[in-house]
């Protein structure tokens, strides 16, 4: 047998053992998930004892297939995207043994949902400008400040938190990274309503919130380094899977054009087709990017993909409203809701148009992405800046 076959055989044995001991048909969902974690079959690329087996990430796909075939429950990863995608790898990389043991299991099972307390009203693109202060009081930190753009905050048990612990050193060096208890009385969550009417995100107000020093992740003053590791994991998520032609936003307009000939206008055709071509080229560029990664040539194209995706969704939804004419003047519902899961496409054309505006802001604005491409890919000089070497407290704000 090849090594690969040996690994697969071993995984099969482990999965069979798990299924035998915990029949998905009868055992409680949460009990099954805990057992899966303890069997190292949660994320096999994590270390043994922490839900994994120290294998490569790709093997998890095989495990998932076996489990799905057996009717096993999954951990509903969309409900805890920040926890699984950002908090977990950061805890694994920077956490103490105690932190790993405490947090990773309930995170993975979804018993404890996580959120992220990074952005602030004054620290958007310039994340290193966070002003939320954490002041040491014995073996706890007292935290004050305001965070924004926090999804799932109202459901989260824990948050990863970036706060300023030393204002007397330059901005990048005076931050620390914490795990914050969202049930602390000093934490207040308010829904942050968007232009679509709904509140996907929250504002979080921290008023003398207390965080034990044992919940610090990484060394004091090393928060920027830890946060960057977190953000790297965010960017890895972009790219996604292969999708068929017209599976993206262009599919809605194409469907309208095909099924409603009364809305077709010759003067709109060239714009429709330009966007169709661009959407298809973008889709194929995703394929090419995945091929490059698979061939061991990872590149910086992810930033370019995101730029293109944002521009296209905006242009396409804008055209859609014009094509629809009268229907484009109507909207489905302005009622404020707090959706569990974001869906860019699930609602009506007006919603798609408005929601698409966020695509060029969230997860790195298009402007910041252009800077990144210019500086990292094209090796052009960085922006002149005056905030790098002077103490945080002396930077003009």
């Amino acid at each position, binding site marked *: 047998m090849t090594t690969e076959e040996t690994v697969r055989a071993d995984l099969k044995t482990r999965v069979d053992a798990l299924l035998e001991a915990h029949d998905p048909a009868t055992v409680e969902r949460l009990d099954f998930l805990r057992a899966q974690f303890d069997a190292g079959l949660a994320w096999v690329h994590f270390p043994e004892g922490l839900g994994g087996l120290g294998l490569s990430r790709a093997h998890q796909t095989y495990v998932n297939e076996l489990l799905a075939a057996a009717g096993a429950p999954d951990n509903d990863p969309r409900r805890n995207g920040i926890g699984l995608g950002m908090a977990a790898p950061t805890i694994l990389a920077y956490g103490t043994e105690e932190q790993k043991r405490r947090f990773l299991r309930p995170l993975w099972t979804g018993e404890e949902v996580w959120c992220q307390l990074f952005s602030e009203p004054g620290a958007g693109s310039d994340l290193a400008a966070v002003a939320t202060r954490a002041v040491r009081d014995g073996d706890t930190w007292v935290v004050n400040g305001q965070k924004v753009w926090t999804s799932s905050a109202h459901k989260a048990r824990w948050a990863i938190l970036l706060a300023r612990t030393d204002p007397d050193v330059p901005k990048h060096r005076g931050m620390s990274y914490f795990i914050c208890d969202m049930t602390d009385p000093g934490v207040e969550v308010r829904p942050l309503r968007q232009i679509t009417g709904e509140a996907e995100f929250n504002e979080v107000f921290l008023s003398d919130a207390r965080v034990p020093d044992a919940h610090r992740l990484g060394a004091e003053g090393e928060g920027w380094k830890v946060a960057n590791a977190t953000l790297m994991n965010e960017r890895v998520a972009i790219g996604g899977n292969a999708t068929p032609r017209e599976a993206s936003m262009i599919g809605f307009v194409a469907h309208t054009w095909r099924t409603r000939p009364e809305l077709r206008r*010759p003067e709109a055709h060239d714009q429709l087709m330009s966007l169709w071509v661009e959407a298809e080229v973008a889709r194929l560029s995703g394929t090419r990017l995945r091929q490059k990664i698979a061939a061991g040539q990872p590149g910086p194209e992810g930033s370019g993909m995101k730029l293109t995706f944002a521009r296209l969704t905006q242009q396409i939804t804008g055209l859609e409203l014009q094509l629809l004419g009268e229907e484009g*003047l109507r909207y489905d519902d302005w009622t404020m809701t707090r959706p569990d899961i974001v869906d860019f496409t699930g609602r009506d054309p007006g919603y798609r148009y408005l929601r698409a505006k966020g695509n060029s802001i969230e997860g790195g604005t298009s402007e910041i992405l252009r800077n990144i491409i210019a500086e990292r890919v094209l090796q052009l000089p960085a922006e002149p800046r005056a905030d790098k070497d002077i103490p945080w407290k002396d930077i003009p704000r």
Partner: protein
Amino acid sequence: MNDANLLYTDVETALQESVRDLLTDRCAPEKVIATYDGDRELQPKLWRSLALDLGLAGLLVPEERGGAGASAREAAAVLEELGRFAAPVPFLTSSVIATEALLRAGDDALLATVAGGERTAAVVVPFSTSPDELRATVRVDGQGALRGRVTSVAGAVDADVLLVPVEVADGVELHAVEAGAARITPVVSLDMTRQLADVDLDGASSTRVVEDGGDRAVRAALELGAALMASEQLGVAQWCLDTTVGYLRDRTQFGRSVGGFQALKHRLADLYVMTESTRTAARYAATTAADDDPDRHVAALMAKSYCSDSAVRAAEECVQLHGGIGMTWEHPAHLYLKRAKADQVALGNPQATRRRLGEVVDLPMPTT
């Protein structure tokens, strides 16, 4: 017309200032935003002040017919301010479009009540209708009552009297219907500052305002609406530019004023140039309409095409350059985005408008 005056007269500037003062006082963004949650408390009082106290309801009506005797230029100046505040008032629908229809139709009794601000009127067509695509779908039944339903009508929610194009055997008549006689169902609209309504006229009794050529009157009214909406779009674009410049000048990131980053400076410079061009197009449409210049049709089509797209671009850049804050419900940017996008689609979208313009200036689209 090369000698059309494209500047603002002192009278226009004074009028704008008085409108702006009133709106600054009574049309705070948070109240406008509240209209999206169904809170329409702001509107009646605000409209009464504009219509009666400032006398804007009859601005376009000659003095001898009960109005203020001003021209399309002054109405455009007012619309610019209304656009700048995304003000939720029926000036465009009642005092411009419906009033122009009545002026053309010659019903001076009804006109006088609208001009005096006692009654608010609306022309009952889908707001997306372009002047050259008007189709009357309402008919008169055997009992002399109306039959028909018109969807997505602007101004109907605020109207006391509805002006309905009615198809008859030999053309289109214009009928007046008391709002109470129709079933007016407000519609959840992309732009709630000009909320649309579906109007069901089945069984409504009506008065004939004009027998023959009702379509001509309504077309002229919609064309004037498009020509002057350009100034509203200018107001939208101007607010977006001013607000974005102010925000970026004040905001600091990376230890510098964000407004000092060259990529943003260049985009704002382009936005400024575009906004000034928007002013040219809007002023030209208003002036040629005021002078009943032969070029007014070309001017209206140009203005609808140019200003529709530029207002949308200004609003989209405004949201983008504000970053996250521009995506929030509390920040007024979304009012302008929604207004700009709805205005773009309303009264003939830009592409359809350019196709029509091609016919007018002898640059026709070929048949395929």
